[in-house]
């Protein structure tokens, strides 16, 4: 069997990298090594990306200005309603606040928002230093709720208290708190969509499919949703979980609290989209929906497959490297690349879980490099070693790929077209083809050949 070539890697890092066939398995779900150029973000970031798409919420970042500046309108979550969430609100803590406490300023900021905008819902994110300087964010939020009769939810998310996944969990807790503010209502027959953030309008595509197969949507969490919509979530009959990394916890908790069962779904690629729609219909025990789903997915997958044909010819035998946030998406991408005749030769994630890595190692072709929380040097090393033609990743990976003359597709906040569903599968093929077969690489390859 092929051995993993590890020269130039930190000893501590070697446990986080393996080949798909390795017996030993892979270390993951731990803190980054100090001194690494980690591609990871923090707890606050995790909490913020999950809650941010709630369009009518006011997100106050309690801390020095940076955390608000960097996350202002941070992901391409689209809205069909108000655009409140696209503003940046912060207490912009100053030195004197750090010395004397920032509590008064936070109370003031909430007062000013209430006076100006009459909000229904405010999230207060406590960043790194808030706990250290001793602000009692919880009491301040409670007092404001009482004073104004609105919902003010604290999200205590100091960056150092774990990694992005910890932040996802905090966001889920905040969502549960929001749901608990609703009055008990009668159960409906619809579903909640968990873990779609309506990047480039993907939530709209999925909603359209569900409508076509006769499935009602109660609440979308959190893409293009509102405070009221999320509060209705407990009445749903089923949760479908798309981004399991961020929302698996919420699904589990909602099952415990509200007795709502859930299934994991993925809408990336034809195969996953078809399976997901069918499984939703079955899970609802709705014969009509099953029938409709069969017809719909049958028609759509044939249609889409024929649309992919020309791209398959153009992309035949290419090799892909994947480096994304969560494991579930990586799994979908391996399948989706396979649909296009592309082999995945390197697969990594920032915060993938053990069971997800198991699946990846089984699913990927033998010899595929699998790695957790990689740094740029490792990405470079293994993209070179495996001869990847394209990297799928996020903002920090894009310029790295380009420097290595490797094509790139953003499957994160900066995706430019919807990549979900059948429509997304075609967009994905188009985008992969556009970047891999662009003439801009030609010059370099000619120079390299000389």
């Amino acid at each position, binding site marked *: 069997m092929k051995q993993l070539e590890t020269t130039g890697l930190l000893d501590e890092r070697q446990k986080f990298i393996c080949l798909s066939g390795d017996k030993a398995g892979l270390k993951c779900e731990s803190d980054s090594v100090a001194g690494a150029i980690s591609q990871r973000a923090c707890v606050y970031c995790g909490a913020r990306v999950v809650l941010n798409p709630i369009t009518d919420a006011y997100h106050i970042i309690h801390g020095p200005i940076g955390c608000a500046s960097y996350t202002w309108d941070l992901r391409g979550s689209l809205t069909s309603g108000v655009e409140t969430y696209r503003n940046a609100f912060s207490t912009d803590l100053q030195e004197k606040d750090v010395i004397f406490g920032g509590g008064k300023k936070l109370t003031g900021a909430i007062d000013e928002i209430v006076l100006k905008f009459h909000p229904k819902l405010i999230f207060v994110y406590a960043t*790194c230093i808030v706990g*250290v300087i001793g602000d009692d964010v919880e009491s301040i939020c409670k007092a404001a709720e009482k004073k104004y009769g609105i919902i003010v939810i604290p999200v205590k998310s100091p960056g150092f208290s774990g990694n992005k996944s910890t932040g996802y969990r905090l966001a889920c807790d905040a969502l549960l708190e929001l749901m608990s503010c609703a009055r008990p209502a009668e159960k409906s027959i619809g579903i909640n969509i968990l873990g779609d953030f309506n990047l480039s309008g993907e939530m709209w595509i999925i909603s359209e499919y569900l409508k076509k197969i006769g499935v009602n949507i109660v609440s979308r969490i959190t893409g293009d949703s509102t405070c009221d919509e999320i509060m209705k979530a407990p009445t749903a009959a089923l949760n479908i979980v798309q981004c399991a990394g961020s929302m698996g916890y919420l699904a589990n908790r909602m099952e415990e609290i509200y007795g709502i069962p859930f299934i994991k779904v993925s809408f990336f690629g034809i195969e996953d989209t078809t399976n997901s729609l069918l499984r939703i219909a079955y899970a609802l025990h709705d014969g009509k929906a099953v029938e409709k789903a069969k017809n719909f997915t049958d028609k759509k997958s044939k249609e889409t497959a024929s649309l992919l044909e020309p791209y398959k010819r153009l992309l035949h035998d290419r090799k892909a490297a994947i480096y994304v946030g969560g494991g579930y998406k990586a799994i979908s991408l391996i399948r989706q690349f396979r649909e296009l005749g592309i082999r995945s030769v390197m697969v990594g994630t920032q915060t993938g879980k053990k069971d997800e890595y198991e699946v990846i190692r089984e699913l990927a072709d033998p010899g595929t490099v699998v790695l957790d929380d990689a740094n*740029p040097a490792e990405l470079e090393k293994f993209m070179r070693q495996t001869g990847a033609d394209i990297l799928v990743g996020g903002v920090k990976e894009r310029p790295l790929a380009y420097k290595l003359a490797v094509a790139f597709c953003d499957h994160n906040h900066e995706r430019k077209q919807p990549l979900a569903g059948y429509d997304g599968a075609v967009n994905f093929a188009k985008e992969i083809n556009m970047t891999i077969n662009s003439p801009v690489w030609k010059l370099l390859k000619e120079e390299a050949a000389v």
Partner: protein
Amino acid sequence: MLNGTPKEISERKALRINPAKTCQPIGAMYAALGVHRCMPHSHGSQGCCSYHRTLLSRHFKEPAMATTSSFTEGASVFGGGSNLKTAAKNIFEIYDPDIIAVHTTCLSETIGDDIRTYISQMEIPEGKFVVHTNTPSYVGSHITGFSNMICGFINYLSKSTGVKNGKAALIPGFVNPGDMREIKRIASLLGVDYTMLPDTSGVLDAPMTGKFDMYPKGGTKIADIIGLGDCDYSVGLGEFASAAGVALLDKKCKVKGNIMGLPIGIEATDRFVMELTKQTKGEVPYELEEERGQLVDIMIDSHPYFHNKKVAIFGDPDTVIGLAEFAASIGMIPRFCITGTPGEMFNQRMSDVFERHNIDGIAKPAADLFELHQMLKNEKVDLLMGGTHGKYIARAEDLPFVRIGFPITDRYIHSYLPIVGYRGAIRILEMILNALMDRQDRDAADQDLELVM
């Protein structure tokens, strides 16, 4: 978009909405990237480092390499000393930089980490360096952090041997690599032998080679930073970003310096050129005179299209001051000029500009874009200038918009080309004219659409 902004301006004491600044550490990271074979190191949670790298990548469309101490609960309770020491060891081992430039964050500042002591306890490989600066995120802005990091390098490295090296120390201000190239070009044309700190040209505008260089060719060399202490004189461009470095060189190494504004526009570039010629006692070469003449020529040709146009400018203080002066000097009205960076000096400099050019203008430091938007709802302007975040206001108010400054995350090439110097002024003028004239074309009735303008 963002049209929820109400017209009525009410005083805000606690709430910041839509900031026109960000925090110190990213400025320090940017400055450190301008030193050759330097690894910027963020001593805090890993999110900080990730955010800064992301924003720098979004602005420059280049990889921005930096490491982090990856703080955990433990570090935030017991101090980040062991994280920093482990980090330094790992960084030298795996990334092999010549120097690590540590900057702090709000967290490591608040828990009181003593970086200088940690560094003194490190085992630093022979011939390598570790420097640091304090960049508490709750003081100043990214401009302050940039300024502090420059001081960090000078503090640790620059030495006066007692023998002058005949060079000028140039501190370029918080500007793009394209500007740094232009400042160097002007200095070279004037026959000035210089060391510029920092110098991100060749780093954040490095050419495509088909391979990834962790440390591209550009950046100020460590030996040259040490040699700053022997320079004949120093020139700092942009008071907010460069004054501290100039003052420190004077205090530490007795290198006398002159602090001036960023050379944006014709007057400021004249002053910069005069300052350097005063030092060299040389002549201004024809090449520069020609560029200046071209700029004047273009100004005259096109003046009917920008004359008396009202403009709102936002961004970093040194940039806004420079742009406002240039706008005023060509007959535009810089009506609203705001920066997110705090500092009374901004008001003083802007008052100078307003008075000299008889402008009825409003300037405000420590302001935000929500407030600027409100100002513009109450009084319409003809043009908006600033970073990408202005696009929300431009769309809501249907204003022509020139992207200039930091950050620009939705356009390409901007960081390669200068806004400083005479050539930079020509470029600014082209951007202003294109924005105004495209708008005129867009809004013209069929019968008014002109072929020749």
